């Protein structure tokens, strides 16, 4: 592959604001007295709780078991007592079931898995089962169960590791690639073995040159190629990443395996390496706590179930009242209304946005400037679809391929009329789905 940064069509260039935390080494958050682990942390079916109030648990012990193929198990972040199983604030501003564990301070491992030191000669099926058992999900934000992607029903020839981290502000993957370079590559090699592939390619945006050169220094030992990607949002979106690296277009409504690709986030790859080599389930992750109002922005290794308030406290609190608190990045993250939400497996960032950046806009009429059309990485017509939605013509929206929308928000970002384009598409998709369900019932 050439050294020229790879890119896709469309996209936008928001201020990346990564300097706030990019140079801050990952710190391990101290053990807390209490963790509130949200039960449903994955896309797909929620796992079924297997502990009850009063149970003593060890670190890494199973708390909830998977309920089907697209589901993942959940494990205890530390040793202690299950003190409550009740609803707590969730990431979508609604209460969700959670398991409260009061730590005993011992932080003692149970022995969930046998380490597989000789992974090179291990049966790929055994390795895959380990990914299933360890409860690993897409840690870039989606939370899609990793093992599902490792069971393609079509021939796959390319394994891609997603180290793009194209969302502004976030630096968790950057630090991970820099500080745990060999773990990332090891994870890639294990994933490749599971898929029966010899090699893997890791795509990293050009704004992380230190991570790229460090990866390059070790990559050949693991049969991995490092590819520089153009700095362009949403470079880390699965379909855009595949296109940039292979030139293949994932069909609308299709999956990466339809074009022979499997994409895994770099943090998920490290989780796979930990599960195989150390026998550790997925109970911690690196999260960026950042934003202009934060006193000491940085990157921390949090256990799942850590309240956001604790994370912000570790970062020194805030200098001024932020206007928004987000889980994830500013382009696709979710706004929160509570500090009691806890870190999950897919919490890549805890971002506090200052008032200046959340100036309130009134939406004005579309002036048909076409900026959204240029920015759209999926080549659909955001302005036209948005007008169809305003007229409640969801059939038009469907004809205009609203289903292809990946909700990256690029169109809303560039719109001079501040139209709620992204919201319109989310609504259109929901309405189309509801109409289809209604039809099926008839």
């Amino acid at each position, binding site marked *: 592959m050439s050294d020229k940064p790879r890119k896709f069509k469309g996209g936008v260039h928001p201020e990346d604001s990564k300097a706030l935390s990019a140079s801050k080494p990952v710190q391990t958050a101290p053990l807390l007295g209490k963790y509130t682990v949200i039960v449903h942390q994955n896309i797909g079916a929620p796992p079924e709780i297997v502990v009850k109030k009063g149970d003593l648990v060890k670190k890494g012990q199973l708390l909830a078991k998977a309920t089907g193929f697209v589901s993942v198990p959940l494990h205890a972040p530390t040793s202690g007592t299950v003190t409550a199983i009740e609803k707590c604030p969730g990431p979508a501003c609604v209460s969700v079931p959670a398991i409260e564990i009061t730590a005993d301070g011992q932080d003692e491992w149970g022995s969930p898995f046998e380490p597989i030191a000789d992974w090179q000669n291990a049966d790929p099926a055994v390795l895959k089962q380990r990914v299933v058992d360890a409860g690993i999900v897409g840690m870039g934000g989606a939370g899609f169960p990793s093992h599902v992607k490792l069971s393609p029903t079509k021939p796959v020839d390319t394994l891609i590791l997603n180290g793009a981290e194209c969302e502004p502000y976030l630096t968790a993957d950057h630090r991970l690639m820099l500080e745990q370079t060999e773990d990332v590559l090891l994870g890639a090699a294990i994933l490749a073995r599971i898929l029966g592939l010899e090699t893997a390619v890791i795509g990293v945006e050009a704004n992380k040159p230190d991570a790229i050169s460090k990866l390059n220094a070790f990559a050949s030992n693991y049969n991995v190629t490092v590819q520089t990607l153009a700095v362009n949002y949403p470079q880390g979106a699965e379909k855009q990443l595949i296109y940039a690296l292979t030139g293949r277009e994932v069909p609308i409504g299709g999956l990466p395996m339809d074009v022979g690709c499997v994409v895994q986030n770099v943090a998920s790859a490290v989780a796979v390496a930990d599960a195989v080599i150390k026998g550790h389930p997925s109970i911690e992750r690196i999260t960026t706590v950042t934003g202009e109002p934060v006193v000491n922005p940085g990157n921390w290794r949090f256990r799942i179930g850590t309240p956001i308030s604790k994370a912000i406290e570790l970062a020194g609190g805030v200098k001024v*009242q932020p206007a*928004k608190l987000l889980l994830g990045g500013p382009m696709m993250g979710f706004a929160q209304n509570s500090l009691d939400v806890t870190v999950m497996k897919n919490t890549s960032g805890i971002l506090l946005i200052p008032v200046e950046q959340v100036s309130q806009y009134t939406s004005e009429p579309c002036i048909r*400037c076409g900026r959204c059309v240029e920015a759209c990485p999926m080549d659909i017509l955001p302005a036209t679809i948005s007008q169809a939605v305003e007229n409640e013509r969801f059939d038009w929206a469907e004809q205009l391929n609203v289903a*292809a929308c990946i909700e990256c928000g690029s169109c809303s970002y560039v719109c001079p009329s501040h139209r709620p384009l992204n919201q319109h598409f989310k609504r259109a998709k929901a309405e189309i789905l509801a109409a289809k369900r209604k039809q099926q019932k008839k």
Partner: protein
Amino acid sequence: MSESETTVVQMPDATKLVVSNSPHIRGGETISKIMVQVFIALMPAAIAAVWFFGLAALEVMVLCVMGCMAVEVLWNKAAKKPSGSWKDGSAALTGLLLAMNLSSGAPWWICILGSLLAIVLGKQLFGGLGYNPFNPALVARVALLIGFPQLMTSWIAPQPGNWLACDALTGATPLAATGKELASISDLFYGNVGGCLGETSALALLLGGAFLLFRRIIKWQIPASFIATVAIITGLAHHVNPELTPPALYHVLAGGLMIGAFFMATDMVTSPMTANGALIFGVGCGVITSVIRVWGGYPEGVSFSILFMNALTPLIDRYTIGKPFGYIRIKKETAQ
């Protein structure tokens, strides 16, 4: 935590957090920023107009800009709509574009009537900014042209540098000229010819057009295909019969083609949104302009061609919807 544990950590107040949909940051582009940039792009042409036609040109421009803004405010009051829309700059821009389409000899009431036609008939009756199918300034120009043909087709001869250039000297538009009366190419390029304020200096309009292209306010497809089409058709016509029409370069530099191609046809609201649509739109404008200029009854056809293509814009948009990312494969696979 170290010794400094006593320092109080200030935490965010959760009750003051805003919850809304992503994206949470915006690019900072606004309608008024776009309008201001188009305004800036028109400055070379405006300065050229004052240089060639004196303060009378400035008067026309001020009257039209103020007129359009005043009509916008009054209409919003009368229609009980929010009154702030004059601030977005679109009315002022319509006014300046209207002025560019008038002669420096236009009486004050033509300017005011034009403003009324542009804002009310051209824009507000359709629902205001974003909903008008036709370019408001051109609606006004054509309405005035039909209503006051005499006034709208008599031009002031340019008097470079003469601030107090008066209405006495009238000259024909170079497009109506034939044979030996043809203006020189350099006069056309610099603007030393009779015509509307914005029709004269090709150089000033090119400067403004380049700025708009550089700032990515307009799509290159429209001016490029518009001008190229006019050049090809008039060039061929001239080649076949030099008596029929002046050469291509003359057509490109004379009359309203430059301002039409860079400033009028590129109006976002009334031109296609897709790149391919813009190409079709430009070619269509070029064909109609050339046909009117070479074979039609009017010496100039730019306004008519743009208005005609404005009407076709929804249709062009509908038939130039591209295939989304990942579409081709679906087709291939279902074919298998």
